[in-house]
């Protein structure tokens, strides 16, 4: 296969970037999209050029590192996969492929295709945890969890935090990420003590960085883990309910 890549090159956070065209020959259809970049980078290094910086780690769709806007779609044309699980056989021979980093105020470009996704860490720090029980280890399965709740929580917990939802969203909103991170705890008994504080704190932190939801559904379509828009509705519902939970004030003398 032969493909023509048009890749965003940007030497650093504060320098201007531009698209650079790279023709790549002898591409195997069985290569992953990241392996295509490995091949291209080897060629660039041999020619004495600067290799293209891109995020990658596990290369099996579970770490959430890879982050490329391929032909205008987050993680490329294949649904429910990360960039590393996208194979070159999904493209036609002679294809022209444009690759760009995620674009969002909260995701500044570090170099080439690498962006800083630390804003997601800020959201997690705001409430993406449960209070750890102290004392002796409890018996397994002592806390009863309805099967349906466990399934839904697991679906939300599948989020790998890659940022494709923000990248795909026309508003640069992080509702899908935040709602998944809230709901995988809020749906389970272990998440109940902090439930209302969690949703307030995580949503407020999210809105410091990201846009708001207009229910396009682009995030769901781009998500490599197929996380459902339903979690956004559940987060919205919990956020409204939390406004009426004034547990800290109830019965207290101030």
């Amino acid at each position, binding site marked *: 296969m032969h493909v023509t890549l048009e890749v965003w090159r940007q030497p650093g956070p504060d320098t201007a970037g531009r698209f650079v065209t790279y023709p790549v020959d002898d591409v195997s259809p069985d290569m992953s999209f990241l392996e295509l970049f490995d091949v291209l980078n080897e060629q660039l290094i041999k020619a004495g050029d600067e290799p293209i910086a891109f995020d990658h780690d596990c290369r099996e769709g579970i770490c959430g590192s890879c982050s490329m806007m391929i032909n205008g779609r987050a993680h490329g044309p294949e649904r429910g996969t990360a960039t590393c699980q996208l194979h070159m056989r999904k493209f036609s021979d002679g294809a022209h492929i444009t690759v760009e980093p995620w674009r969002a105020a909260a995701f500044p470009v570090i170099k080439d295709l690498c962006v800083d996704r630390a*804003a997601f860490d800020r959201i997690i720090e705001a409430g993406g945890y449960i209070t750890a029980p102290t004392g002796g280890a409890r018996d397994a399965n002592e806390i009863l969890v309805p099967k349906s709740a466990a399934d839904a929580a697991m679906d939300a917990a599948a989020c790998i935090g890659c940022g494709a939802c923000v990248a795909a969203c026309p508003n640069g909103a992080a509702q899908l990420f935040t709602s998944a991170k809230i709901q995988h705890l809020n749906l389970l008994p272990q998440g109940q003590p902090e439930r209302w504080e969690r949703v307030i704190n995580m949503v407020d932190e999210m809105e*410091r960085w990201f846009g708001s939801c207009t229910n*396009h559904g682009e995030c769901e379509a781009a998500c490599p883990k197929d996380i459902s828009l339903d979690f956004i509705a559940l987060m919205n519902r919990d956020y409204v309910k939390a406004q009426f939970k004034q547990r800290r004030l109830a019965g207290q003398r101030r």
Partner: protein
Amino acid sequence: MTRLDETLSTEDQREDADAADRLLRSTGPPVPPTKRAVPFPLQFWRSGIGKKWAMAVSGIVLLGYVFAHMVGNLKVFLGRHQINTYGAWLRTLGEPAFPRTVVLWGLRTAVIAAFFIHIVAAYQLTRMNRRARPVRYQSKRDYVAANYASRTMRWTGVIIGLFVIFHLMDLTWGTANPHFVRGDPYDNLFYSFDQVPVAVAYIVANIALGIHIFHGAWSMFQSLGWNNPRYNRWRRWFASAFAGVIIVGNVSMPLLITTGAVTR
């Protein structure tokens, strides 16, 4: 990486700034600054989700108004007496418990408030969204799930807003309608729709309204968190049907009158 709600630290721009200062700029302080406590409805309004909730609730009020307005106006096809009696009844609504036009003004106030909230929230959320992506994608985006209606909400919203002003000038205040007679909606409507450009404006605006409703009447369920596998598939159905009914009902009046299919 910039926060949307506060100005950036300029620590990294000092002469002797080091890598740690630059990192602080990019990752921000881990503990958010404490915000001054405000009454909870105001605090709720300040959040994006609160504004979306307000948009959904005001949207429901406006949907109810649009539907009732259409049902009332369709009486034009039943004849002069029917629609003029209906118009007069609106003013005497609530009598004798309430004085004349008090209930009507109560309803009008609710609609005006809903309209105002809907527009202010939309404006502020749009500003928030623009700030969230100051640098746009440099290559062409390929949208998968977003449809024409959802992509054009801001445009259809502006068209509807401008149309409402014209519509009030045309058939409520009469400033844009030289033949306007107060209390005679039947003749006013015919005078208005006898002019082709006016009828075209009504048709275009009502199609825009239908497109706006097609996305809005679905979107409100998500914004309010009304999500349940039992009825989720009906949400899209409801929005499509509502939009269809409004387009057919509201477009039928200018279309049939202008083309002469319905005459006085």
